[in-house]
């Protein structure tokens, strides 16, 4: 009996570790497969291939097309999306996707910063907006809170803790730096809309606010997640409730006979 009790958690732990390992290897295998698929070198007569082009063909063309023209049912065309979009998706690891149709989420990128720069340059050459400027230090926090609440809070939650909607999970903004904010607002990644109506100063304001909400002023103490009554209710039951139950257990009597 005792041996079983020790064995079961060990088996469960081993199972979960191997499952995770399997998943991780599947991911890298997926990316690796793309990386190691035979790469079509430049057709005769073309200029020497850039590193970005090579990386693109290896890692992106299966969904986005050999010349970034898009593949039906797999990935959109990247012609005209610009450095702006490429930089956002690649730097935040949202691309490459494991499978087309998945929701892109922030992950550690499989590419080095140099590789990302090369890919961004390649996609940028296909046309489209450059990497945007952003100066959060020029932003006004109060304006930023107002703009963020009006335009962003419905999806991202008023202090950027993320949220949901039917069809998508909306990421929290804990890891988003000012450039991420500026790019996302202009690109409108996945099902997020873009916001052409915001001018540079407004984007600076929002970027400043997003920087602030990474660690908002918790004058009241432990922030318990900054998502409101759910963790508050848990504290009421699991902290206060348990403490007080424990207290009356000690103060009161138990049935003894």
């Amino acid at each position: 009996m005792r041996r079983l009790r020790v064995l079961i958690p060990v088996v469960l732990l081993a199972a979960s570790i191997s499952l995770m390992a399997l998943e991780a290897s599947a991911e890298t295998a997926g990316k690796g497969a793309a990386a190691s698929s035979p790469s079509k070198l430049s057709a005769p007569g073309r200029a020497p291939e850039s590193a970005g082009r090579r990386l693109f063909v290896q890692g992106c063309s299966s969904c986005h097309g050999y010349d970034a023209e898009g593949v039906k049912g797999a990935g959109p065309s990247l012609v005209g999306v610009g450095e702006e979009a490429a930089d956002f998706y690649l730097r935040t690891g949202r691309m490459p996707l494991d499978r087309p149709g998945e929701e892109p989420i922030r992950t550690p990128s499989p590419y080095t910063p140099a590789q990302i720069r090369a890919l961004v340059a390649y996609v940028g050459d296909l046309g489209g907006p450059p990497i945007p400027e952003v100066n959060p230090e020029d932003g006004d926090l109060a304006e930023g809170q107002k703009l963020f609440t009006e335009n962003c809070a419905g999806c991202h939650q008023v202090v950027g803790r993320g949220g949901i909607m039917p069809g998508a999970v909306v990421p929290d903004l804990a890891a988003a730096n000012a450039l991420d904010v500026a790019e996302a607002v202009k690109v409108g990644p996945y099902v997020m809309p873009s916001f052409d109506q915001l001018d540079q100063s407004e984007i600076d304001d929002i970027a400043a606010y997003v920087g602030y909400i990474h660690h908002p002023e918790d004058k009241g103490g432990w922030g318990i997640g900054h998502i409101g009554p759910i963790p508050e209710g848990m504290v009421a039951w699991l902290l206060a409730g348990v403490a007080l139950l424990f207290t009356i257990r000690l103060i009161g009597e138990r049935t003894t006979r």
Partner: protein
Amino acid sequence: MTRGGLIARVVATLGGLGGLRRHRENAQAELHQISGPANRKFDAVRSGEVAVRGNERARLAEEVPPPELDETPDPRAELWVALLLIAAAIAFAGFVVFYVVSEDTHLLGLSLGLGLVLAGVAAALAGKRVVIQEKTTDEYTDYGDREERREVANHLVEGKVGVTRRKLLFSSLAAVGAALGAATVVPVASLGPRVGEKVYETPWSAGKKVVDERGEPIALDTLSPGEFITGFPEGASKEEIGSALMIVRLETDELELPADRADSAPGGYVAYSKICTHAGCAVSLFRYPTFDETQPGPALVCPCHYSTFNPADGGKVLFGPAGRPLPQLPLRAGADGSLEAAGGFYEPIGPSYGGIREGPEKAPL
């Protein structure tokens, strides 16, 4: 009781389901009562060597343990109580100091809370260890006295003695009661206006300019397809629920508006009331796919209960508990190239109530 023992017991309890019932049935079959006052306490004795008494509690409920009194002093507990009280005093003093010196909420809460908890532990400890420990008894009172009730009833009935026109008086009393009740309740109506046409009135009408949150007009080139902005009527209060709009720009070939609304979307701009028709929250989420072949289509979503509306087909409900579509406001391009309303909303805005579908002509209440 070890934890292993507890688990074993729970498992045995749950696991012995069938077996125990069988066992009990067998035990019943073998019982024979032992008579005699000395043995009346026992339910049964098996013919085997060992018997197990059932239902201890029935026996317990008849006997009450005697009163107890424990007057032994406990100097150690007294010392503890004193120490706790001194510590509490220090904590309270700390609260006073913190209040004066710093206004830090954490220090104030920590000192006051700790002081109270320490004082509380002292009091509880005193109650359980320092003062005499006593168990006494009292009697439950039986309430209910037939005689008294009869007398009460008789007294009440005395009110009727000598009164001849009882039916007349009683009916007039009933009339007064009803009328007074109505008179008392009716002033409640002073608390607020009648619904009347109010729910159908919004600040929007043909020609009303659409402006953004700052009051700037919204031009036809303000948004690209796949973007949204919150709009308001120029010059009107932003807080009226009839004011706020979710203005969304779609590609013109994405639109699937009904035939009678064909001209309501200049340049692909469609406008909807921002107030959810379910429970009145602001519909502030806009979902727009980057790549519609693998991603969910355009939608306006409310964050309260996730009612989801389709902006391309006039606001129909795609998912969620909303019972009415999101009301659309027809737009047109004004002379200066900015957006303006082409009329009022196609449907009443806001959450449903009895007369909501009846339209302004019939609003009864």
